[in-house]
C-alpha cells in the first residue's frame, strides 16, 4: 500500500493536473479497485467499465482535491457509489426483462474460480461471492484493503458500529460457508 508521503505527493500532482501523478495513482490503485469491483459486481466487463469511470472521475476532480485527501478512501467511495448505481440499474433491467432464469441475472459461479489455484482458494472465493453485498463489501474493505471500521464507515456512509456488526455477520457466514476449509482457529472458536 502507498505510504503517506507518496499519497501526499500524488495529491499535490493531481491538484496541479500532472499526468505523471495520475499514472502513479492508477498504477497503485488499479488492482485494488478492480478486485473490489469484480468481487462486488461478479462481472469482469462491468468491473472494467466501473474502473474506468472511477478514474475518469479522479481525472475530472483531481484539481479540486483537498490537500489531505486520502486517495484510497476517495477512490473506494466513488467505486462504492458506482456499484450501487449499477446494482439499481441492474434491478430495473431485471424487472423490465421479467422472469429471466436466475443464473443469467446473478450467477453463483464465481468469475474467479478459474483464477483460484487451489480448492481452498476456490471455496473462499465462492464463500465471499455468496455473502450478501452489504456484508461482502465490508469484508472486502476490511479484509483485503486492511481499512479500519471507521474508515469503511466513512466510505459507505454508515456508523462504525454498523460496520462492525456487518463484519461480525460476514465472518460468521464465511465460517459457515467454508466449513472444513475455514481456518482451524475459526472452527474451534
Amino acid at each position, binding site marked *: 500500500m502507498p505510504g503517506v508521503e507518496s499519497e501526499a505527493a500524488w495529491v499535490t500532482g493531481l491538484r496541479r493536473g500532472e499526468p505523471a501523478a495520475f499514472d502513479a495513482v492508477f498504477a497503485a490503485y488499479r488492482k485494488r479497485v*478492480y478486485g473490489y469491483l469484480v468481487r462486488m459486481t461478479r462481472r469482469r466487463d462491468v468491473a472494467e467499465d466501473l474502473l474506468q469511470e472511477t478514474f475518469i472521475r479522479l481525472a475530472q476532480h483531481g484539481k479540486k482535491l483537498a490537500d489531505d485527501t486520502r486517495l484510497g478512501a476517495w477512490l473506494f467511495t466513488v467505486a462504492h457509489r458506482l456499484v450501487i448505481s449499477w446494482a439499481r440499474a441492474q434491478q430495473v433491467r431485471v424487472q423490465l426483462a421479467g422472469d429471466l432464469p436466475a443464473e443469467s441475472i446473478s450467477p453463483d459461479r464465481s468469475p474467479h474460480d478459474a*483464477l483460484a489455484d487451489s480448492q481452498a*482458494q476456490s471455496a473462499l472465493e465462492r464463500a465471499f461471492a455468496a455473502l450478501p453485498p452489504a456484508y461482502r463489501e465490508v469484508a*472486502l474493505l476490511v479484509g483485503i484493503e486492511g481499512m479500519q471500521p471507521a474508515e469503511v464507515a466513512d466510505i459507505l456512509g454508515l456508523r462504525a458500529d454498523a460496520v462492525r456488526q456487518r463484519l461480525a455477520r460476514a465472518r460468521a457466514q464465511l465460517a459457515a460457508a467454508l466449513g472444513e476449509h475455514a481456518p482451524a482457529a475459526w472452527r474451534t472458536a
Partner: protein
Amino acid sequence: MTDENDLKEISRELPALDVDPEAAARIASAARRGRPLWRVIEVVAVALLAAGILVWAAIKVLEALR
C-alpha cells in the same frame, strides 16, 4: 478486533485480480481523456428532457386546479 483480524487473515488467501495490460492501458488512456463528448451531451439531453417533463406536468396540475 477478532473479526477484523480473522477477515484480514483469511483474505490473504484470495488471489489478486487485475485487468490485462492491454485493457489497463486502454482504461488509463480513456480516463485521462475524460468523459467522451457524446456522454456529456447525453447527460445534458436527459436532464433537459426530465426538466421539460416536470415543467409540463406542473403546468397541467396548475391547469387542473384552476
